[in-house]
């Protein structure tokens, strides 16, 4: 039995410890916001937070998450009001949207560690998240906007 906290809820899972976290989230728990892209940690579509770090859930075995805290796109905020989610809507970043959960979860780690990222910081943080629609410029714009919102919230 493996116990994992996912989006603040505890789950006791009777499951093969080698199972990728992605399939636990999608097929066992039913959290399908996290997407399968490449399956070999090359595209970033499956990024979730494991103890706050942006792991690729397609190659992260559920055994690594045992007793740990996982946050998915569904748990990033209480009311879908994380600055990144608000900025994403305002900038209208999404085209097909398939990669966006991974992009936002990766960007959330960046904004936690760097309150005022430059374009270069964003490149360094999200280099591993591929968008086949090529929405990179809007992603970058939204991250800057979210950073500004976050700074304003802290000041306010």
């Amino acid at each position, binding site marked *: 039995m493996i116990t994992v906290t996912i989006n603040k809820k505890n789950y006791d899972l009777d499951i093969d410890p080698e199972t990728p976290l992605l399939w636990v989230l999608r097929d066992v728990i039913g959290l399908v916001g996290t997407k399968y892209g490449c*399956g*070999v*940690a*090359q595209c970033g579509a499956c*990024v979730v937070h494991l103890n706050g*770090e*942006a*792991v*690729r859930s397609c*190659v*992260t*075995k559920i055994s*690594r998450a045992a007793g740990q805290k996982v946050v998915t796109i569904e748990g990033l905020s209480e009311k879908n009001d994380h600055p990144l989610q608000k900025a994403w809507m305002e900038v209208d970043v999404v085209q097909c949207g398939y990669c966006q959960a991974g992009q936002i*979860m*990766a*960007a959330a*780690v*960046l904004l936690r*560690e*760097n309150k005022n990222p430059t374009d270069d*910081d964003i490149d*360094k*943080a*999200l*280099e*591993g*998240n591929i968008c086949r629609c090529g929405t990179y410029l809007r992603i970058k714009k939204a991250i800057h906007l979210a950073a500004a919102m976050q700074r304003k919230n802290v000041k306010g």
Partner: protein
Amino acid sequence: MTKFVLTIAVLVSITGLLASGFRKNTVPVAINNIDSTASVAAFMEVYKVLMSPRCMNCHPAGDIPLQGDDNHLHTMSPIRGKDGKGVYAMKCSNCHQPTNSPGLNAPPGNPKWALPPADMKMVFEGRSPRELALQIMDYKRNGHKNKAQLIEHARDTLVKAGWNMGEGRKPPPLSYTEFVVAWDEWINKGGIAPAN
């Protein structure tokens, strides 16, 4: 005649000591074990391993690791970061798990996966045998390792993982056991740097 042999032996030892970088801030070795010929020969075996992709890819000249048997820059350009473990959402352990991921060329894994830190880069890429040997024997440039710690380093689980890097990756040119024997021989016989 005996005097002559003794003089030559002393001279050879002194030359060996100087070549080993056996000076201030370098790794001390026992003088009576020095055998410069054997030491250099052993290092040339060690060098083949250190310059193989399995070792050199994580000891790059720049701040992006190398990848593959052709030492290309790591796709998605992960950055070394201050501690060598990456930055932001691009930390090594986000993809590199505690064990190898299954599948051809899937990310190899180890709990210690990282580059050397930014303040001690321990670059292998581009180093000649002499440069690399002197660097490894230099306490200020080898991660502050003394002789015992250098010997121990060959037994490190991350070093050993170089021989188990998952599907699609060529192992180093020596077996792990051969490498350790050559490593120990090089250091125990003086840690001598080759002439070039």
